[in-house]
């Protein structure tokens, strides 16, 4: 197959507003952004606590989290599949092959990344940040917010990485989403499908979109973080 013709076809698809294509992009964005929306506050809280609190089992939790960083997304998909399928513990919720299941899967995938990065950002913070904040009479919550604000660059790095991981993962989405056209088909599952059918143009168009989505989201987050970001 001539790659030039294919690429031209891919752009034609994008700019002629192919409805199926845009639905796929919409599903990808919606699922990943919602997953990040739920996972981020939770993970930042956990990461901050792991970095600052001292309690029994803290080290074990940190090691466990580091281990989960490398967990294959298909394995998470498999576990979630077992839990959500008819015979599974949560079978009665009828979540399997829905977007909600995909969001759930992506939350689980994003959590360890967010926790690990937040943890290291907070641990890397100047110890005077917390001391100054406490000494000036701030409570635990205000101290936490101040510390996280001071290390916002590290926290944003957590968000970038986690978003990158969830928006591009295919294993879990395929297993618990089921790649249903117009419903749970997102960019990665669609690329895999189109390529296996020999529809390279569709695959390339979607690949470009995935790249564009990743770049646009990263740029807008970087813009939001404003000063105190890149030097």
């Amino acid at each position: 197959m001539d790659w030039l013709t294919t690429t031209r076809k891919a752009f034609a698809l994008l700019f002629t507003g192919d409805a199926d294509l845009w639905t796929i992009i919409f599903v990808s964005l919606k699922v990943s952004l919602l997953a990040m929306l739920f996972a981020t506050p939770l993970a930042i809280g956990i990461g901050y606590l792991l970095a600052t609190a001292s309690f029994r089992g803290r080290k074990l939790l940190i090691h466990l989290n580091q281990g989960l960083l490398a967990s294959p997304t298909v394995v998470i998909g498999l576990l979630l599949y077992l839990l959500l399928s008819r015979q599974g513990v949560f079978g009665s919720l009828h979540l399997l092959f829905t977007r909600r299941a995909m969001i759930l899967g992506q939350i689980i995938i994003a959590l360890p990344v967010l926790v690990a990065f937040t943890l290291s950002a907070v641990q890397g913070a100047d110890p005077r940040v917390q001391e100054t904040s406490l000494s000036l009479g701030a409570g635990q919550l205000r101290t936490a917010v101040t510390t996280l604000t001071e290390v916002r660059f590290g926290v944003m790095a957590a968000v970038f990485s986690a978003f990158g991981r969830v928006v591009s993962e295919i294993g879990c989405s395929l297993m618990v989403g089921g790649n249903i056209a117009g419903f749970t088909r997102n960019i990665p599952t669609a690329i895999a499908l189109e390529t296996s059918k020999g529809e390279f143009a569709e695959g390339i168009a979607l690949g470009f979109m995935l790249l564009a989505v990743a770049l646009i989201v990263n740029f807008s987050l970087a813009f939001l973080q404003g000063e105190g970001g890149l030097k």
Partner: protein
Amino acid sequence: MNAPLFVIEKIRKQFGARVVLDVGGLALHAGQSYALTGDNGAGKTTLLRVIAGLESAQLARALYRGLAVNLCAYPEWLRRDVIYVHQHPYLFRTSVKDNIGYGLKARGAPYRERELLVQEAVRWARVEHLIDSPAHKLSAGEKQRVALARARVLKPRLFLLDEPTANLDAESRQQVVTLIRDLCDSDGVAVIACHDQEIIQLPGIYRLHLQAGQIDHRGGQLPARDPSDRSPLGASAASTPAESLKWQAVAND
């Protein structure tokens, strides 16, 4: 003699086998300021940090205005009375104004009041021109002055200043000394860890000398205080065990 604001008995701190601090007792009196001297590694910073509740240590007991307090589980209300300023103060990556207003905000001061107090504080520290500058871009001397203003605006009863004039050039140092002189003249108690002769010789400042983790018993007594002095404690507290402690302050001569 009036009753002390803060009394700490038998403070001991060790890292492994190394004892960094072993002080029999310490009494800080309201309206009095102290210069805490001693060689590097004598335990000055550690002592200040223990009093500020930023570091734990073994201690027999601590009394704040006659009330027993646990410095290792520092009570929130005590944080509002005691402020520690680092040798190299950390200014949050916000404006000078927000830095100075930080503690006021934490205390729930309304916006209007905060504005007024911050304005007054920047005038006091002579940093009016920097009020909207990003705090992390200031020079070392400016940072120190902002940090002092940030502490003073909260009107704490006890200032703990760790080497406020170290590593400053002559002009910045002079400006900081002027501010410290003013702090010492105010109602609060200031304990200033320093090597700075000018601070040690400020009028009315008492010298506490730490040596190898111990407060040097070079004798000397605090002079009897003016009875008209506004002591935060009534006569009832005069019988605190602190009175039986030997004064370890060395009057500056």
